[in-house]
């Protein structure tokens, strides 16, 4: 309840502050046609490219960060020897403790020069693809570098949440799969992933949330321009993100320019809200479907055979995961599909 009030308060503040800039005519208003906001006919022309830049950089970061993060989580939870797993898990958690300005400096000093040969190569050989269109950057301050650093920054969030979810996979599910002759990877596909799917989605979306709002690293690393562009390795065509744009221009902004920047912040707020709602719909939608159709075709999977008649393990299952036991309780027997699947082993 308190959180709702705070959230509503923030939204109200953003809306009230932003209204003067949103309603103003940017081409004639003397405070808005100079400095950082010069050259835009109205608020929407200004915020549009920023929204694109925010989503674009976060999407690239997610493209690199999510598979790696989930992979690391899986390695820690199911492959690594116990001692290595705890060290690795600890290290990844530490990654979350590094301040974003340090990531920014790391990006400037290490990642930018490191990526220069790659971007030169991409421009020379794949320059005909719009993504890698030139002119290629000579300082390395590209959105590619920024997004890669972002990917590292969202890694600990995705990894630690997925790891926790993976570790919660009921042991019986896993052992059942193994007992049926599944290899470890098959076991993960049959028992762990179905169980953890919604958790992985939430982890990824939390990572996305972090990537959307990340300010300092992006502000330091990329050479921004307020335009819509998909170019990855140029100097002057990197779409700026909302958060970095606010950080860069707030100090010199005049009163109306501040309102305009707060307006872009409102848009970021709306985007984050949308991302969260989508996450809820995805997670909640799956649950809803399951309760409606009673039988979920895949997630209880092979293990539905295991606890049948085994009171102790059924109770244990109930304790470990309230969610899938509901599915099991409703499950009256293997579906034909499961039979076919099971027959393979």
């Amino acid at each position, binding site marked *: 309840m308190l959180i709702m009030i705070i959230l509503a308060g923030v939204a109200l503040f953003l809306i009230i502050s932003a209204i003067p800039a949103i309603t103003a005519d940017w081409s004639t208003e003397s405070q808005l046609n*100079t*400095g950082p906001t010069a050259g835009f006919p109205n608020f929407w022309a200004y915020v549009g490219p920023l929204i694109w830049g925010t989503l674009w950089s976060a999407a690239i970061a997610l493209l690199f960060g999510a598979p790696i993060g989930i992979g690391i989580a899986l390695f820690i939870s199911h492959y690594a020897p116990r001692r290595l797993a705890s060290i690795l898990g600890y290290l990844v958690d530490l990654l979350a*403790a590094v301040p974003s300005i340090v990531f920014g400096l790391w990006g400037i000093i290490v990642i930018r020069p490191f990526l220069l040969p790659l971007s030169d190569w991409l421009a020379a050989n794949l320059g005909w693809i719009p993504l890698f269109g030139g002119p290629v950057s*000579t300082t390395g301050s590209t959105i590619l570098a920024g997004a890669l650093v972002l990917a590292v920054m969202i890694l600990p969030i995705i990894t630690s949440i997925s790891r926790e979810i993976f570790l919660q996979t009921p042991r019986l599910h896993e052992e059942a799969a193994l007992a049926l002759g599944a290899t470890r990877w098959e076991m993960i596909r049959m028992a762990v992933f179905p169980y953890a799917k919604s958790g992985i989605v939430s982890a990824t979306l939390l990572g996305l949330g972090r990537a959307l709002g990340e300010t300092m690293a992006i502000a330091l690393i990329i050479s*921004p321009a307020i335009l819509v562009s998909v170019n990855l390795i140029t100097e*002057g065509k990197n779409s700026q993100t909302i958060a970095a744009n606010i950080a860069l221009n707030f100090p*010199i902004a005049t009163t109306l320019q501040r309102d305009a920047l707060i307006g872009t912040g409102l848009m970021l707020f709306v985007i984050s809200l949308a991302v969260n709602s989508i996450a809820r719909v995805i997670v909640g939608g799956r649950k809803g479907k399951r309760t409606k159709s009673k039988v979920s075709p895949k997630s209880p999977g092979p293990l539905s055979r295991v606890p049948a008649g085994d009171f102790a393990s059924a109770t244990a299952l109930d304790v470990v995961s309230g969610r899938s036991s509901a599915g099991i309780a409703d499950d009256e027997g293997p579906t034909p599909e499961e039979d076919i699947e099971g027959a393979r082993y």
Partner: protein
Amino acid sequence: MKFKNVAATGAVFVTVAIALSACSSSSTSGSSTSASTGAASTAVTSTPLDASLTGTITAGGSSAQANAENAWITAYKAQVAGVTVNYDKSQGSGGGVTNWLAGSYDFAGSDAPLKADQQTSSQAICGTGGALNLPVYLDGVALIYNLPGVTTLNLSTDTIAKIFSLAITTWNDPAIVADNPGVTLPATAITTVARSDGSGTTQNFTNFLSAASPTIWTNPASNAWPIKGNVSSQKGGSGVVQAVTAGSGTIGYADHSAIGTATAATVNKVAFSQEGATAAFAAAATTVPTATGDLSQKFDYSKLTGTTVYPIPLISYQIVCTTFKTAAQATLTKSFIGFVASSVGQQVAAKNAGSAPIPDEMLTKVQTALASVK
């Protein structure tokens, strides 16, 4: 177990913090340590300081004068131990003025004097007398470049305008060759490096470009870099310096006091020197008051053509009310700015922050203006 985790994480934090502070002290706050020694050796000031003053001065704004501000504060505190001066450089010039107009600061540091509408709104906190822009910090905008094989580079005003407006795109362009007889220039593409954040340095540099080369540089002077296209935009002066030195064929602009070991080009064959900047101020700055007694400066760049004056000076101001809310706070602030605008104060900044001393004639005017502050 939980506690252990926390402790270990804390340890890492501390390590990072130490590493960070070590970083910053090597570049910036090294100046403030030497400031105290500088102050110790020059204990005499032209304005007598009242050592019995106590209180706190709250200020903020321009990051360009931050290093000088540190040096001033350290030197001032060495003599008036009871006064604490807090200068928040994270605000930038615009934020400094905004906070000052809101009544949170005793003075604002700003690279641009108050605009007419700001001067008007300052009457809300300063009374009908309005505010005073006091020039206290002088530096130059340096043009730094990194072009392997080229160790000296000279650029004329028009060539600078062409390069930064992207009219020239390679280093062996005839215009650059003409400025550098005898120097072999490669056909490398030029990458101009500018500030991505709004900045007083950008304001001063575009002032220069639009005034000195109006036919080539057709953009208005602005605190945000106006050129779109193949421009590398970096955060902060240090970001520009980093990108220029890390890149190849790069050229950028930055406060001279912030360029470190980067190579600076000569402008019209004049290299930056503190004397050159001071001479430029003396030769070309005229007072354009926005209120009675105000000392806003405007440069006549056409006068900056000699061989002894640096063509792109940079001024930063401290902005105060003509009438403070309390007499005690007025006394404190006058005492501090009085020290800043003394010859000794200017020498402290010159020595520790690399700025150029403001000419004595102007310092006298600042002291006079300050005396009228109530």
